[in-house]
């Protein structure tokens, strides 16, 4: 059976209510007649023999790269960097694709007599992974072999003893990355390319960089000029990363990039209905929907959150490419687009979207209002190539409870950002100039980032910059079912029903608006023509 492509449905009288994520629950909404609903393509068929495909990719690299086994020399230092817990979402069922790839790489290294090996989680300014998360991503065999010898490391962007300054790009951007990785005889990067933003030079240039370096592309100016950063050819963020990546290569850092793509088979059997088209729901789907939505609504927030975060996706490997970074990434992008892209004709006045319980930065944790903002305006809004799905001056309607709830261990600086910064202003440029430095250099946040499991003090700022392009572009944002106080704190308007939200949007975009709904799960990306 081949998977069906995505398509645009126009709502008519016979269209059943549409499923929307609403945090750790979901709701059914009936859209006005004429609304366009963007259905993603169905999950692609996975590779039949993942281990064989991995072996094949490693030995048949693309670009100028030599087969991996020829790169190993006895006595060399090998560093294997890998994507952290922010990918994939939700975490995939064991074995994680990183485990498969790393095991294959390690076997080859061992066969070649390479024993000076380090594993480094490419955290950038993300939180350190917990033991459970590392075990899940790498498998217990790898974890137990590397941890006691202190060879399983997590990148520390604030460790002056393990950072190396590689000079600046021709645009004056500081390139400072993990010293161990930069000075290794070979740096292998194991990536998961869930969306088109990931991978390429960004893997090393951001994932293993310091705050000094990252700030050159994670800022309001770059973000406003990344249209969108899901489309690297129109993304200032990527241009900067590519300059840095090429600079890193020019400095003699030898990188062997391994990129993997997954299909969009996001939910296990029980939650099948989430990815199905509503009119194709079976009786079983209906009862599963009713049972699960009722019980989630009846549970306290923390419990339904816990339940949802325990979900492991049955993602399957659809492609793996290894070798030289740019050549690898070109192939990866094609694969990602073929899974996610849907062609849409023309922009819309109102774009609606349901936000799920998880985004890249709240795995096993709480989606706080700043992350809600970022997931909507940073990620979903940017799921386009060409031009934004919503027209300039249009409105985005987000469905999410948006409560002022925070994880104090993972997101300590977010709490202060919410209480101290957003109470003053929501303007990205003003936030950047007035507050970024004090948060970025706060010794307490640095301490928690380095020793605890906290995101770097500057991270909430990046979330805010992530949405800068959308803020610039949109005429308004409405949060359906959002906590009024928290929603207003973000600078948005709360609405209690979809009809109310659309009425409110009309005051911004005018009567008789065109409405488009981004149906998820799974992930979908619009090519607006």
């Amino acid at each position: 059976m081949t998977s069906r492509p995505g398509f645009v449905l126009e709502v008519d009288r016979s269209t059943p209510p549409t499923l929307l994520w609403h945090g750790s629950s979901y709701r059914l909404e009936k859209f006005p007649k004429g609304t366009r609903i963007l259905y993603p393509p169905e999950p692609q068929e996975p590779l039949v023999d993942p281990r064989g495909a991995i072996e094949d990719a490693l030995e048949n690299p693309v670009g100028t790269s030599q087969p991996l086994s020829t790169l190993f020399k006895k006595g060399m230092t090998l560093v294997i960097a890998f994507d952290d817990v922010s990918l994939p979402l939700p975490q995939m069922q064991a074995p994680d694709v990183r485990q498969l790839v790393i095991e294959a790489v390690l076997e080859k290294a061992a066969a070649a007599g390479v024993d000076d090996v380090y594993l480094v989680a490419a955290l950038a300014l993300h939180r350190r992974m917990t033991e459970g998360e590392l075990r899940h991503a790498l498998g217990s065999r790898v974890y137990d072999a590397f941890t006691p010898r202190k060879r399983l490391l997590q990148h520390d962007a604030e460790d002056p003893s393990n950072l190396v300054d590689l000079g600046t790009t021709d645009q004056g951007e500081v390139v400072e990355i993990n010293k161990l990785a930069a000075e290794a005889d070979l740096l292998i990067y194991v990536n998961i390319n869930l969306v088109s933003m990931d991978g390429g030079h960004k893997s090393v240039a951001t994932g293993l960089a310091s705050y000094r370096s990252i700030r050159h592309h994670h800022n309001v100016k770059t973000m406003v000029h990344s249209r969108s950063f899901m489309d690297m050819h129109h993304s200032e963020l990527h241009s900067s990363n590519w300059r840095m990546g090429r600079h890193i290569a020019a400095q003699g850092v030898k990188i062997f990039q391994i990129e993997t793509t997954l299909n969009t088979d996001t939910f296990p059997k029980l939650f099948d209905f989430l990815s199905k088209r509503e009119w194709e729901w079976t009786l079983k789907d209906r009862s599963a929907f009713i049972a699960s939505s009722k019980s989630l609504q009846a549970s306290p927030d923390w419990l339904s959150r816990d339940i949802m975060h325990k979900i492991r996706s049955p993602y399957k490997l659809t492609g793996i490419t290894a070798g030289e970074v740019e050549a690898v990434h070109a192939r990866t992008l094609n694969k990602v687009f073929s899974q996610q892209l849907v062609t849409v004709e023309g922009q819309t006045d109102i774009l609606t979207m349901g936000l799920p319980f998880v985004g890249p930065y709240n795995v096993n944790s709480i989606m706080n209002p700043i992350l809600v903002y970022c997931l909507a305006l940073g990620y979903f809004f940017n799921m386009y190539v060409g031009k934004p799905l919503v027209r300039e001056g249009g409105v985005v309607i987000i469905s999410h409870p948006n409560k002022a709830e925070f994880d104090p261990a993972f997101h300590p600086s977010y709490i202060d950002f919410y209480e101290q910064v957003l109470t003053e202003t929501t303007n990205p440029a003003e936030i950047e100039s007035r507050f970024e430095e004090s948060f970025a250099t706060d010794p307490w946040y640095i301490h928690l980032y380095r020793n605890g499991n906290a995101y770097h003090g500057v991270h909430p700022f990046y979330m805010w910059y992530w949405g800068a392009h959308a803020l610039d572009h949109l005429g308004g944002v409405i949060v359906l079912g959002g906590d009024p106080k928290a929603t207003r704190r973000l600078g948005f308007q709360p609405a209690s029903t979809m009809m109310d939200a659309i009425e409110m949007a009309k005051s911004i975009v005018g009567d008789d608006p065109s409405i488009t709904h981004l149906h998820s799960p799974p992930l979908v990306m619009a090519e607006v023509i």
Partner: protein
Amino acid sequence: MIFEELEGKTVFITGGTGFVGTALIERILRTLPNTKIVLLIRAGRRSSSTVRFKREILKNNCFDLLRNSLGESRFEEMVADRVKIASGDVSKDNLGLSEGDVRLLGECDIAIHSAATVSFDAPLDSAVEVNLLGPSRVARAFQDASNSDPGKHFISVSTAYVAGSRRGNAPELSLLDNSLYPEVDWGKEVKAARQLRDDAELNSRNPKLLEEFQRKARREIGSAGIALLADRTEKLRKDWIRKEMVELGRARAASLGWPDAYAYSKALGEMALSSSKLSIQISIVRPSIIESSLDQPYPGWIRGFRMAEPIIISFAKGLLKEFPGVPEGVIDVIPVDLVVSAILAVAAKGPKGGGEIEHFHVASGSVNPLRYESLVDMVRSYFQEHPLYDNKGQPISLPDWSSPGRHKVQSEISRASKLFNLAEAATSLLPLRGSRLNFTKELESKKLEIDRALTYVELYGSYAECEANYLINNLDRLRGRLSKDELTAFDFDPRQVNWQDFVSTVHLPSIVEHSRVKTTPEKATVSAKRRSDRQLKDILTEEPRLVAFDLENTVVAANVVDSFAYLATRHLGGAEKVVMAASLIAEAPSLLRLDKKDRGDFLRYFYRRYENANTETLHDDSWSLLSGYLLTKAFPDALWRVREHRRLGHKTVLITGALEFVVQPLSPLFDEIVSAKMTINDDGTLTGQVPGTPPIGEARAEILSQLARKYDFSETQTIAYADGTSDLPMLERAGVAVCVNPELKLMNIARRRGWRIENWSRAHGSPSLYLPIAKVR
């Protein structure tokens, strides 16, 4: 008569800091340019007589008129030229004057004695010392200082209420000449009062009573440490003595037919003065209830909160549903400027001569009576037109007046008071903290107000029921001798008062202004916010500060028990974790009891559990304790506040009874951490013993002082954050105290002292019951 007779004279005045005294000084300075003043002022505990004169008399708005017309510098010059200060005390023999001051007194021509204990519920002994012995003592000192010069004139300001609870006409006569009064040997009264005081002192030391004071102190401030408890207990003992003496005073007064100790002691003071056989001449002025001024220095001037005001304000606030009193009864009120004019006229007229004492009533009741009923009507209609506002910005509506007897009102209020006491006792049993206790704030202030109203009704009720008629024949005769000019400046005719005008345009606006009640519909939250902002500005100042934080319930909502539970379960399997947690929960009540009794003992007992624990493992685990538990239980506002202090360049310290390795991960937050330190065995395991005094309770105050010295701060430059009464010693020692999520006892203390209260909560999102069991994330 007044202008001429007082020209070039020097007047000695006692009681200058009082209501009449201040007005008297002002009037002399303003209207009699060639009259000088010698003031008797008692030196305060911290301030000299001169300082008190400047602060307590000259600063009063009574002098605004004079100060403005002269200008500040000429005013000061004039005062320096005309007023001399004698430092002394009317309750001491010879007034405790220095030789120089005795000479000063000797040079005075007239002495006006207006010093008195005006409180109606003064303890018997102090009323006797000041009011009974005062007049004759001052008179004798005046006579001795002036070598028994018979030309000297002594004027004693007494009260019309020396007439006591007797009905009908009260003439301007000596009480000794009036058969209605029993013969009282005032000497014996003095002796008895002093004896009773000694007895009360003795009785208060009864072990049973002492125990009760101690229990009460503990109930009020909790386990705040020996020193504070002792302080509090001693204060309770003194309060008890005072209460006893007040009760004895009231009983003795009632037995002789006076409404209270004030009238009784004033009456006996007159008798003592009459029988003191002095060579100087004596006059006695007896004003009735003195209220705000009719005209001078400006209409409505008043000093201090007088007897009727609290009742009126309580009524306007809706606290007092009824005014006690007899509707057709007369309430004898006299504006203060009329009293001052009368005193000066008596001074100018000179004594009667022949060693005879002349008496003057300054009262309105017999010639221009203010009926109780009409006063209540005036008050009602005034507040209907100008209502006070409650905290929500709503005008307070007034109840109807039904003229009940005093006893009915009394029982009504005391019933309310009992109810509030009950509510308070009930809340103190609840395990509430911080903002959940906000409702008690209103409870507490209502209770205070009701208690106060009750006291006033008890005390002053009899004055509203007084049916004596104070004749003013002598006063009228005196007025007849005033010249036309003097009639404009010194008219004391009570007939000139139009009560309706006086009450509604002069008196009530003045007392409303004085009582600082809400007269605008501004919401309390607005003013509370302003106050809070002000407080915060004082705390987050750019000045150098040493800031001390308590840990448990101030920075994190965790304690030594749950951090132990977390660490202990960190390496256990699922079932073992449950067993461990269950055993701790089972032990909780006994642990809590021990903690309440003595925190130090509790900690030492509990810390034994760490015996033989591996230090290295604990050190590693403490990091997971931080992100796995402590951060979840931390107050983000507290963490932010610590860093705000640091950003301002303040030194921050954490003072905690928790163990060193538990708080180690918090070290980047503070400049220094003072914690309990456990000794280590030779094999690197813990001994389970914490030698020395753990940094808790009283020890914290001392540590704060030591840290202040170490970092070169004065104690006033310190700020302390804490949550419980056990931290009281540290909070009291600090320059600024901040209570975080206080329990009821501390919250009440904090409110009374104006300490800042922070209600900090954990970040929302985690389950509210978060078990201290380590889990893998």
